[in-house]
C-alpha cells in the first residue's frame, strides 16, 4: 500500500475506487499506526478497532456490490465530543466515563450515510475548555510534529492524529479557535464553518452560540470533501441555516493557474498584527500575504476596532453558556455518579469528582456573570460588545473579500508550560475568537515552520456563508 502517513483523503478515496487497496487494509494500517503512537502521541481516548474493521468490511462489501458513496470506506477520526451510536463519548471528562452514545450526532449520521469508517475518538480539552488538550481527564496529547510541545486545543487529538499521519482526516469543533489553533500547531488544514452551516445536534455543547463542527485535514480539497457531506440544514438543530450548502469540492477549478487570486481583495486587520505577535509568526504571515499578492490578490489594511474586546467578551459569553450546558452532568441519568444519601450531596460529590479544574473554573465564571446583580455588568454588556464585534467584521468585509491574519500569536509551546496560568492560555485565543463571536467562517492552512521546525498556520477569514471564496483562496495559498 501507499505510504499512509502522507496519504490524503482524496488519494485514499481514489485508491479505494480503483481497488488498489481495500477499506479493511487501509483501516488496519491506520489502526496499527494509531495503536503504536498511543504511548507517545496519545491522540486518541478510544480506538474502536473492532467497530472500525466491521464498518470497513461492510464498505468493501458495498463497493464489491457496485455501490458508491462519497466517503465509502474512508476512515475518519472523531473528536470525543460527537455522539457516534455505540461508541463512548466522554468529551475527555471523567463525568462521562462509561457513557456510550445511544444515538448518532447529525454529522456522524451524515458521515455514516456517506460510507465513512469511524476509527475512534480523539483526545481533547475536557468539554473543549482549553487550547492545549492538557485539560483532558485522560492525559495530554503530544504534538507529533513539534515534539515535546502541545498540539494545541481543544481539538488537539484530531490535529495530532491528522498531522501525525494516524488518520486521513478528522472532525473537530471550534468554539473560539479549537479547530484552527491546533491545525496551525500541527501543520494541517482546519476549517471553522459559518455558524449554522453544520449541525450541532449530537455534539456535546460547549458554548452553543459559538460552537461549530468542522473538518481537520491534510489539504483544502479534503476539507471540502468532508464539508460536502456534513454541511447543510438540519431539522434537529434550530440554529442551522436554511440556505442550501453549495458544493465546495472543486470550487477552485477554472481559475487562472498563474494568478488564481486575481480580482480578490484580502484585508489585513491591523489589530491582528500587534505587538504580542511572535516575530517568526509575523514574518511567515507577511510572506504569505506577499505570495497572495503575487498570485493576483490586492492587499489592503483594514481595521476591526473592537478586536481588543474579543477576549473578555468571548470569555463572558462562552463561560455563561458553559455553566448552563454542563449543568446536566449531575449523576442522575448517565455517566459518573458518586452516590450519597441525599440529592444535593450527590450533585456536589459527582461534580467535584467528575469535572477537572479548568471546567470548574469556567462553570464558576459563567455562573458569576449570569448572577443577579452582575448580569447587566457582564453578560448583558458582553452581548452588546459582541454585536459591535460582528459589525466590525461586516464593515471589513464590505471592503474586501477575505481577511488574512495569523492563527495564533506564537507557535506551539512546550507541554506543561503555562498550565497554572489560565489568563496566559486565554490570551492565546485572541486572533481566533473574533470569527466565532461574529459567526463568520475561517480557515487555518499551513504557512511554513519556525527555525526550530514548529508549524505555523495562516488564517483566512470570510463573511458568513463565504466558504467557497475562503476555500478558493486557501487552495491557492496552501503548500504544494
Amino acid at each position: 500500500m501507499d505510504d499512509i502517513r502522507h496519504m490524503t483523503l482524496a488519494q485514499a478515496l481514489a485508491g479505494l475506487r480503483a481497488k488498489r487497496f481495500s477499506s479493511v487494509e487501509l483501516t488496519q494500517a491506520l489502526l496499527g499506526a494509531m495503536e503504536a503512537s498511543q504511548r507517545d502521541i496519545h491522540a486518541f481516548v478510544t480506538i474502536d478497532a473492532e467497530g472500525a474493521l466491521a464498518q470497513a468490511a461492510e464498505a468493501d462489501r458495498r463497493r464489491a456490490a457496485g455501490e458508491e458513496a462519497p466517503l465509502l470506506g474512508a476512515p475518519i477520526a472523531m473528536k470525543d465530543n460527537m455522539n457516534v451510536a455505540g461508541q463512548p463519548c466522554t468529551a475527555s471528562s471523567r463525568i462521562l466515563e462509561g457513557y456510550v452514545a445511544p444515538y448518532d450526532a447529525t454529522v456522524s449520521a451524515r458521515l455514516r450515510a456517506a460510507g465513512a469508517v469511524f476509527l475512534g475518538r480523539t483526545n481533547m480539552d475536557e468539554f473543549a475548555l482549553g487550547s492545549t488538550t492538557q485539560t483532558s481527564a485522560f492525559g495530554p496529547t503530544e504534538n507529533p510534529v513539534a515534539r515535546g510541545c502541545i498540539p494545541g486545543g481543544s481539538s488537539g487529538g484530531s490535529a495530532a492524529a491528522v498531522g501525525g499521519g494516524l488518520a486521513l482526516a478528522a472532525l473537530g469543533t471550534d468554539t473560539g479557535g479549537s479547530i484552527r489553533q491546533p491545525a496551525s500547531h500541527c501543520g494541517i488544514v482546519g476549517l471553522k464553518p459559518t455558524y449554522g452551516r453544520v449541525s450541532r445536534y449530537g455534539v456535546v455543547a460547549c458554548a452553543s452560540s459559538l460552537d461549530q463542527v468542522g473538518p481537520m485535514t491534510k489539504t483544502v480539497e479534503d476539507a471540502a470533501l468532508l464539508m460536502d457531506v456534513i454541511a447543510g440544514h438540519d431539522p434537529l438543530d434550530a440554529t442551522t441555516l436554511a440556505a442550501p450548502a453549495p458544493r465546495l469540492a472543486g470550487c477552485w477549478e477554472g481559475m487562472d493557474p498563474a494568478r488564481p487570486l486575481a480580482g480578490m481583495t484580502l484585508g489585513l486587520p491591523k489589530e491582528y498584527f500587534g505587538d504580542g505577535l511572535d516575530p517568526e509568526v509575523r514574518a511567515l504571515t507577511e510572506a504569505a500575504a506577499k505570495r497572495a499578492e503575487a498570485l493576483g490578490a490586492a492587499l489592503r489594511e483594514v481595521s476591526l476596532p473592537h478586536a481588543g474586546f474579543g477576549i473578555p467578551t468571548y470569555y463572558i459569553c462562552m463561560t455563561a453558556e458553559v455553566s448552563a450546558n454542563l449543568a446536566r452532568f449531575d449523576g442522575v441519568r448517565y455517566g459518573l455518579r458518586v452516590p450519597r444519601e441525599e440529592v444535593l450531596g450527590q450533585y456536589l460529590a459527582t461534580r467535584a469528582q467528575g469535572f477537572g479544574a479548568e471546567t470548574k473554573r469556567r462553570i464558576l465564571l459563567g455562573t458569576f456573570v449570569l448572577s443577579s446583580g452582575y448580569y447587566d455588568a457582564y453578560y448583558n454588556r458582553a452581548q452588546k460588545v459582541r454585536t459591535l464585534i460582528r459589525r466590525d467584521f461586516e464593515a471589513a468585509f464590505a471592503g474586501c473579500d477575505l481577511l488574512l491574519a495569523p492563527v495564533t500569536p506564537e507557535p506551539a509551546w512546550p507541554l506543561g508550560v503555562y498550565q497554572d496560568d489560565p489568563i496566559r492560555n486565554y490570551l492565546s485565543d485572541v486572533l481566533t475568537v473574533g470569527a466565532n463571536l461574529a459567526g463568520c467562517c475561517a480557515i487555518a492552512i499551513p504557512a511554513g515552520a519556525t527555525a526550530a521546525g514548529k508549524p505555523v498556520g495562516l488564517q483566512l477569514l470570510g463573511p458568513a456563508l463565504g466558504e467557497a471564496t475562503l476555500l478558493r483562496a486557501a487552495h491557492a495559498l496552501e503548500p504544494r
Partner: protein
Amino acid sequence: MEYEVVIGLETHVQLKTRTKMFCGCATAFGATPNSHVCPVCLGYPGALPTINGEAIRLTVMAGLMLGCRIAPLSRFDRKNYFYPDSAKDYQITQNGAPLCLGGAVRLPAREGEARVIRINHIHLEEDVGKLTHRAGCSGVDFNRAGTPLMEIVSEPDLRSPDEAIAYLTALRECMIYAGVSDCNLEEGNMRSDVNISLRPKGQEAYGVKVEIKNMNTFSGIHAALGYEIARQKAALDAGQAIVQETRRWDPDAGETFSMRTKENAEDYRYFPEPDLPPVLLAQAQIDAWAKDLPEAPAARRERMARDYGIPDYDAGVLAADRALADFFEATAQRCGNGKLASNWVMAEVLALTAKEGRPVQDSALTPQALGDLLRLLEAGTINGPTAKALLPELFAEGGDPKAIVERRGLAQVSDAAAIEAFVDAALADNPKVVADYKAGKQAALGFLVGQVMKRSKGKASPQLAQRLLREKLA
C-alpha cells in the same frame, strides 16, 4: 382592622399537543414510566431542542381568546436550577419576551357589575419530570418532561377567594373553548401558584405577599386562600410583619407551611436560550389562526340568553361547555322553541350524560333528533312521558323520532271517547281513592291520572285524562 385582600394567580395550563414542546415524544398521560422519552427530553449530551409549532399556535389562540397582544417577536430563555426532575438542570421558558402580552378575563356579574381581571402576560415553557419516593430510593419518570405548558400570569386584581375561583373557572372555560387545553384537573393540566397579600382598607400600596406553590384543585386553592387570609390578618392585627416567602398548602393539615423566604430565594440566572432562534410571527399568520377562534364563553352566554329567551342561569350552564352549547343551539333551531330545548338539555340530556358517563357529542343523540322529538311533543303528537321514555334509546342508538313513533304507534290518544272508557274503568276499580278525593284529598287525583295512563299504555293525553276525571268526580 379591616383589610382588603389582594390576590394574583400564575396558572400553568398544559397544551393539547400530540408531541412535547421541544422533541417528537408523545405527551400521553399514564404510560409506563420513561417510555415516552428521547435524548432531547432526557437531556442527553449533545441533544438540542426544536420548537413545536402547534404549541406556538395554541398559545396564540389562548392569547387571542383573552384579548392579548401577540408579540411579533418572542424568545426562549434558560432558567437555571438543579433538581432531579429537570433533565437539563435548566428549564426552557420565556422570561424577557413572552408570546402574549396584556389581555383580560371577564368574570360573570355576581353582585353588581361584572369584574375584569387583567392578564399581565402568557408565556410558554416545558414541564419537568415526576419524582416518586420509595423507601431508600427515589425514581424519576421523564414522560411528562418537556410537555408544553402555558403560564398565564394575572395582575393582582382579585379581591377574594371566591373571585379567584371565578377567575379560574372562567379561564378554564376559555381554554377548553379555544381547544387549547383539556384543563383536566385530575391529570394536573391546570396548576396555579397563588400570590396573596393584605392591605388596610383604603391603602393604595400593596402589602407584603406570600406565594403558595403548585395547587391543582379549586377547592384546595379556595381553602388555602382562606387559611392565608386568616393567618395574615391575625399576624397584622398582632402587629407582626408578614415575611415575603413561598409557602406550601397541606390539604390534610388544612394549613400552609413556609418553604423558603426571600433571602433564600434562588437566583435562576435567566439568559436567552442560544439553541433556539427567536419566534417570529407575521400578522398574516396570526390573522389566519384567528379565523378559527370560537366565540368567547361570556359573550356566548349573553347572546344565548338574549336570542333564545332563556334565563341567565341556563345560558351560563349551557355556555360553560362548548360542545353542549353547540348541541343546545342546534336543537333550539331545529325545534324552534329555545326555552323548551333549554329545559330538555339542562334536565333530561344532562341527567343522561351523567348517568352514562359520556358527553352528548359522544352519544348517538343528534340535535336534529332531539329537535324533532320536541316538535312532536309540542305538536301534541306524543306526550311528555313518551318523549322522556324515548330519549335514552335515542342517546344509545340514535334514530328518527318521527319514524319510531309511527312504527310503534306511540302517538298519544286525544280522542275523548277512547279516554273516557279508561277513566270509567279507573273510577270503578278504585272506590276508596275516589272517596278520598271527594273528602278533599287533592293528591288522589294524581293517582287516578296514573291509572288512566296505565290503562292506555301511556298513550293517553294526561291533560285530557285529568279534565275528564275532574268532570266525572265533580
